[in-house]
Every structure is written in structure tokens, then in C-alpha cells.
């Protein structure tokens, strides 16, 4: 399995991660090595259909759909990099920026 540098850059864009300068080659090599190893799964014969494995209870326990606020030890504005009048501030999204 060979993943190209362009594919790695595309995946990084999907994951919203900047790859530090000078690390692209190493990251590409590592991803190729991991995918080559994971390709071992092709040796297993698996049914074409079937339910995925679920650990834990057969179905998640649902709660009543009521607002039951958890008491917070610290208000969210103490955690936020920028917070004004009940809103988290972030830089402007310039028009329909490409994803």
C-alpha cells in the first residue's frame, strides 16, 4: 500500500491538522508502514454482512429528555481562550472557505 505525499496532505486537511515543515516525508513513511501492516487483515475471511461487535450493554440506557444541568466547578469563560457576553469568540470564517 503506497500513500502519496499529496494524499497525506489531503488527509491532513480533512483532519484539520497542519503537518510541521520538514515532517511530511517522515509522516508519509509512517502512514505507509502502518497501512502495510494493517493490510494483514486481508488474510482473514469475513462474512460480507453482519452486526458489528458491541461491548457493554445490548443497548444504551436512555434517560428522560429533560434539562438537568451539571453543576460546574469553574465557569466556561474561565476555560475559553476568548469569551464575550456568553459567546466563544473565534476568527472570521472567510466566506465559503474551501474545506
Amino acid at each position, binding site marked *: 500500500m503506497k*500513500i502519496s505525499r499529496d494524499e497525506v496532505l489531503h*488527509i*491532513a*486537511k*480533512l*483532519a*484539520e*491538522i*497542519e*503537518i*510541521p515543515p520538514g*515532517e511530511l516525508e517522515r*509522516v508519509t513513511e*509512517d*502512514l505507509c*508502514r*502502518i*497501512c502495510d*501492516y*494493517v*493490510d*494483514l*487483515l*486481508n*488474510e*482473514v475471511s*469475513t*462474512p460480507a454482512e*453482519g*452486526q*458489528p*461487535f*458491541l*461491548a*457493554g*450493554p445490548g443497548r*444504551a*440506557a*436512555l*434517560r428522560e429528555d429533560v434539562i438537568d444541568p*451539571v*453543576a*460546574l*466547578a*469553574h*465557569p*466556561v469563560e*474561565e*476555560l*475559553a*481562550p*476568548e469569551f464575550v457576553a456568553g459567546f*466563544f469568540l*473565534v*476568527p*472570521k*470564517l*472567510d466566506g465559503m*472557505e474551501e*474545506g
Partner: protein
Amino acid sequence: MSRVASIVADVNGGVSPQTTAREVAQRLAADETERLNATLAWSPEWLGREAERVEAQSPGPLSGVPIAIKDNIVTTEQPTTCASRILDGYVSPFDATAVARLRNAGAMIAAKANLDEFAMGSSTEHSAYGRVHHPMDSERVPGGSSGGSAALVAADVVPVALGSETGGSVRQPASFCGVVGVKPTYGRVSRYGLVAFGSSLDCISIFGRTTDDAARVLSVLSGVDPLDATTVDCAPPDVPARPPTLRGLTIGLPEEYFPDDLDPGVRAANERAIRALRDLGAELRPVSLPHTRFAVPTYYVIAPAEAASNLARYDGARYGRRVPGEGGGLRALYRATRGAGFGPEVRRRILIGTYVLSAGYYDAYYTKAQRVRVLIAEDFQRAFASGVDYLFTPTTPTPAFKAGEKTQDPVAMYLADIFTCAVSLAGLPAMSLPTGRVEGLPVGGQLIAPAFEESGMLGVAMALEDAIDPTEEARP
């Protein structure tokens, strides 16, 4: 008597928790502990306040017991970093359910323990705050990702500690450091407040000096939690009495866990433990878990896929570190924050997870891995249905390795979890306990049980603990 039982008896007998808090503070401040680099946050003042709280409480099953908490389990009074720069300055506005239950039972939170960043690693070398050193050989790793918690228990700084498991992150460091590590059944202990990595795999787990110590903590942590919909409503496991014999029990030995290239010392220590199990009256039977060799590749598709989704929340918008991107737009902020905030191993796993979930590769990787996960779980079901009560294996293929030995090859590092991953994929309870030493380094043996059969498993471990000397050198 276990360390935990002894501390509780002292406190109930009139010894002040302040005395224990001062002793723990002295151990945490000692040069030897400093050199381990096993803690990320602690202070004598916190410990003093914890002791005051315990003095004001009614007696509980863990009264006055100091406990270290892996720093991916949130606490309101100490920072939670996950050993990542991206959470610089973060202090949780709520306590994890596990932490709340420990405090209700009288335990004192002694320290937040170092780990591989976001619990991704097998050596605790991937911490933004520096690697943790093995307590017996500073050149070696303590295992990971819960290496800080393991090292603190092994160095006798605290009798018990919380870690977390996704693919073996408590059992593997327990084996490397010569302590007990217990992973409960998925759904036994609430994950509320455990920072999510792989949600279908994550389990808060326990280190103890002895099985009894870990069992007492497990009993307190267990039980349904309305804040975690995956917890199961069943009675907490008892702290079992040490059984005088194992007569009537059948223990399976999976042939895939004793390969020809198994480290000879690891083989020798665990063969001695197997003889001890037989001498205690257990019937031993070879079994096969034929999909074992596919567990690591399955894990390294499913866990990164879940991590890519879970770690999307770290974007510099609501908490943690913020790095303005070039050009100043929102997406530039996300990319710069995540690029600078995550270390290399976390970035690698997010990229792999994004890749296996992307259009064109989803079926080939993610769907395939989900189907193999079913086969791995069925291997265990068949073994237990055949009349085997528990399984016994080595916990790791080698003793603790040297720092830097595997950091250049991610796959070599991933294979350190080859004997622990399958259990995590199947959601089963398992534990590691010390079975011997090889050239002075600890070796662990692993017991695996059917779902929610922790009590029986802990009882077998207690019997084995009594029957072997884990400090004895194993000669191949």
C-alpha cells in the same frame, strides 16, 4: 494484610489521614520519585485538603487511602493535561464519576500521573512533559500508556493508582513494573470524565501492589452511572477471599500466546506460574484463539478511527491552547492549533483514523476491522463455552525494553500490546500479576475471564500470588 486494608484499619483505629498525607508528600518529593518523572501535578497543600475532607467524612471502604490518578481522568482541583500541550491550562469544571466515587469512599487524590499523550503509546515516551523512567532501571520504559501510575505504585509512593486501558495500557505497564493491573469488563466502571480516546474500548483500570488492593478499589468504582449510558446495571464485584485451592476450575492456555519467539525468561516465569496453578488443583487445558494475530491490526484501525472523531473537539475554540494560523481565518486557527498542540504520535493516529474513515477506504479498512473484531470476540466465547473458566497467558512478549528502542518504528511499538489488544476488542475483564523476574526485571502473567466474572478471576490471582515468589529470578 493488603496495603489498602492496612491504611483503612489505621485510620479507623485513630491514625489521622494527615499523617498519611504527610508521608505520601515526603515520598512524592523524594529525589527518587522526582527522577521517575511520573507525576504531572501534586502538592502538599492539595494532600492536606484531601486529608481534611477525609477527617470530616464518615468512615468508608477506602478511608485515608492515597491514590494517584492518570492525568486523562478529570479532577476539578488539579489541571488535566492528558500529557498534551493542547490542554495547557485546562482545569475541568467537573470530576470524573470514578474520582467522585473514590472521594465518597474516603480516598485521597494524591497526584495526577504522567502518561503517553492522550493515552496513545506503550512506553510513556510520548508525553509532552518528558518520558517516565522505569523504577528499577532508569534506562528502560515503564510501559504505557499509564506508565506514571504504574511507576508510582511500583516505587511504593502510593499503594493504588488509576490508569486507563484502550488496548492494554494498564496490564502492559503493570507487567513491566512488577505490580498488579486490573482491567474490568467494558461497562463495569463509568467512563464519565475519562477523556475519550477509543470510546468502544476505553476502560478506567486499576494498579495495586497486590490483587486485594486493586479489588478493593474496583469494588468502589463499579456500578451503573446515569452519566455513562454504556455502564451496566449489575452488582459490583466482591473483594474475594483468598481460595485455599483451585480444585474444580479449568484454566485454558491459548497456544497463540506462547509462540516460539517468546522471550525465554518470560516463558520460564509463566511456565512456573502454570505449574503453580496445577499444584493448586486447577485443571490446565490447551485452547486456541485463532484470530489472535489479527488483533493488533484490527485495533490500529478501530482505535485511531474513534480517536480521530473524539479528538476533533480540540480546536482552540472553547478551551485549551489556541494558535492563530497564518492568514487569520477560522480553519487556519484549527489547523495551526492542532498541528502545534498535538505531538507526533497523536497526529499520526488522527491521520490514520481519518484515512480509514475516508470515502474509498472505509469498507476496506474500517468495515473489515469491525468484522474481524467479531471473530476475535467469538474466539473467546468459544473457549469459555468449551468448559474453560479462565485463560492464562504471558502479559507481554518481553520484559521492559530500553527507552528509544521502538520510537522510530510505530509498528514495533504497537506490537508491544500483542497479548493485551484482543481482550480489549472483546470487552472482557483481564489482569496482569507479577510472576517472576528476568535479569532483575519483572515479568507478568495475564488472567482473562468471561464478562463480569471479575470476582472469580481476582480469587485465582490471589491464590497464585500466595503460591509464587514474584521476585524470584526465572531461569530459561
